[in-house]
């Protein structure tokens, strides 16, 4: 119970920091007064333009960061559980390669449509699911066990990424746009993105958290899980579909943000210990908090310019991860 409260507190504090800090100087007291005014129906201290910056830019961006971070972290935890592999991350089964290829194809082949974010988002979503689907088909035809699926994911990912690189070379002038997308970013156009991914992420997160104990059972291996009355193939399919949908939704609105899905579950496991039914909900909370804070850093460090958020997640996550690994080794 204590770690869950910690996770909720971390997420609330991160969201608060994201709302209070930004390129436009709104003043933290005035932002707090504005929030209080909205809650109690009192008089707003902000001008119309300032209120728009707060409610149409900062708040949706913070909420989107929480959703994307939660989705990536809980999916990463689920993938690590399903594959019994500490190096697993949400992009393991070809979703990154598929989304990368699809987005590049849109940017390169239909440049006049690239300005409409909707097309690129739809392409990323479909590409991510397509990549996982290909991996699933290939893995199934070769046996369908967890290790085979991982190998199939490596093959599909490499193939799709090669296709993406080929398309990029056709139109080098679009390279920067593709590159920015691959680095990942949180710059929603108001609440649209939040509403787009919210239903899918909520459903996936609920399914994944409900499967925590099932993942622990799968942890004893397929044969023993079967001896305990579980169908390992079916259980894996449910978890992989939910995690892949969450990942695809996150990728469609935020690009390929690395490291969150790999590191956050490990941080949670090292700090709180326990099996998947503890790690999954905690990853949800701390993943959201982590990405929101990373986005605050990305906006503040070089303000008014922005760092790619993927740089921040790797820059902050990697040393902390190394520290925890080191501590665990000494313990």
């Amino acid at each position, binding site marked *: 119970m204590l770690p869950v409260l910690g996770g909720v507190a971390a997420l609330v504090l991160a969201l608060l920091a994201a709302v209070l800090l930004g390129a436009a100087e709104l003043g933290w007291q005035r932002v707090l007064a504005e929030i209080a005014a909205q809650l109690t129906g009192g008089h707003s201290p902000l001008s119309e333009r300032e209120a728009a910056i707060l409610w149409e830019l900062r708040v949706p961006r913070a909420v989107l960061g929480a959703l994307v971070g939660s989705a990536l972290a809980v999916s990463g935890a689920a993938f690590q559980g399903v594959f*019994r592999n500490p190096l697993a991350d949400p992009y393991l089964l070809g979703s990154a390669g598929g989304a990368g290829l699809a987005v590049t194809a849109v940017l390169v082949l239909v440049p006049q449509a690239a300005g409409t974010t909707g097309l690129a988002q739809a392409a990323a979503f479909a590409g991510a699911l397509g990549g996982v689907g290909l991996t699933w088909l290939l893995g199934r035809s070769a046996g369908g066990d967890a290790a085979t699926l991982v190998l199939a994911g490596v093959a599909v990912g490499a193939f799709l990424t090669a296709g993406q690189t080929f398309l990029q070379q056709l139109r080098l002038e679009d390279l920067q746009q593709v590159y920015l997308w691959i680095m990942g970013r949180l710059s929603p156009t108001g609440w649209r993105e939040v509403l787009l991914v919210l239903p899918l992420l909520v459903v996936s997160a609920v399914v994944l958290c409900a499967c925590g104990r099932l993942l*622990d059972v799968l942890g004893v291996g397929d044969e023993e899980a079967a*001896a*305990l009355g579980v169908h390992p193939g079916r259980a894996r399919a449910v978890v992989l579909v939910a995690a892949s949908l969450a990942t695809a939704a996150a990728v469609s609105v935020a690009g390929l943000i690395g490291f969150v899905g790999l590191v956050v579950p490990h941080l949670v496991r090292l700090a709180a210990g*326990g*099996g998947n039914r503890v790690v999954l909900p905690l990853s949800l909370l701390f993943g959201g908090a982590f990405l929101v804070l990373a986005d605050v850093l990305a906006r503040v460090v070089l303000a008014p310019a922005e760092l790619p958020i993927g740089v921040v997640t790797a820059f902050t996550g990697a040393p902390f991860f190394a520290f925890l690994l080191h501590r665990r080794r000494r313990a």
Partner: protein
Amino acid sequence: MSGLEVRGLGAGYRGRPVLDGVSAQVRPGGWLGVIGPNGAGKSTLLKAVAGLLAHRGEVLVDGTELRGLPRRERARLLAYAPQNPQLPLGLSVTDYVLLGRTPHLRPLGREGRADLEVVEGLLERLDLAGLAGRALPTLSGGERQRAVLGRALAQRAGVLLLDEPTTGLDVGHAQALLELVDELRAELGTTVVSTLHDLTAAGQYAEELVLLHDGGVAARGPAEEVLTQPVLSRHYDARVQVWPAPDGSRVVAPARG
């Protein structure tokens, strides 16, 4: 109290037949020892009985044929502990033993008070209560085998299938584990089927032995009929010597020259 009967069982891997026409029977609360040379199909027999391998023939628990039974129901009748259990990441001993309650829970359900009581009782009985919160990888070999046994016992199944439960244990720990299984068998009335490499121990603990060779039953009966120099020499292709020990059991040892 559940008896187990196997009739005309055949099983194999990807078209490679391993067992054919194996029949065996254990009385409720009895202990059947499965012995035989490497590759004779001892583990295959246990897996087929546990329902983990496609097989021909019949497996009956208390006279009920198991074919077509949903996995969960089968897991309430038969518990299986493999030779080399995989240990899941991050689980404590209690969490791990609780996994044995899976067939008694609703598909995505959680354990209740009663499940926890079953497990706490088992940990006490298996002398693991002091290690309840410890992570699995930190256990010694003997403690780990007891945890695996605990998980199988938590299923509260009438039949316990143990594949080489003493793998990797020294003579003292192996003896302690087999004594424990024997005591629990008497207390709970559990029927035990185990494969054992150690023929002397097999003769000491099992009421009856089945010797598998070339995919079929080569010999069966009480230890004094199966653990004989001619039978063992022929089926293990080894030079062995068998002596009666002062405690009435039979000691099997390799012979030189």
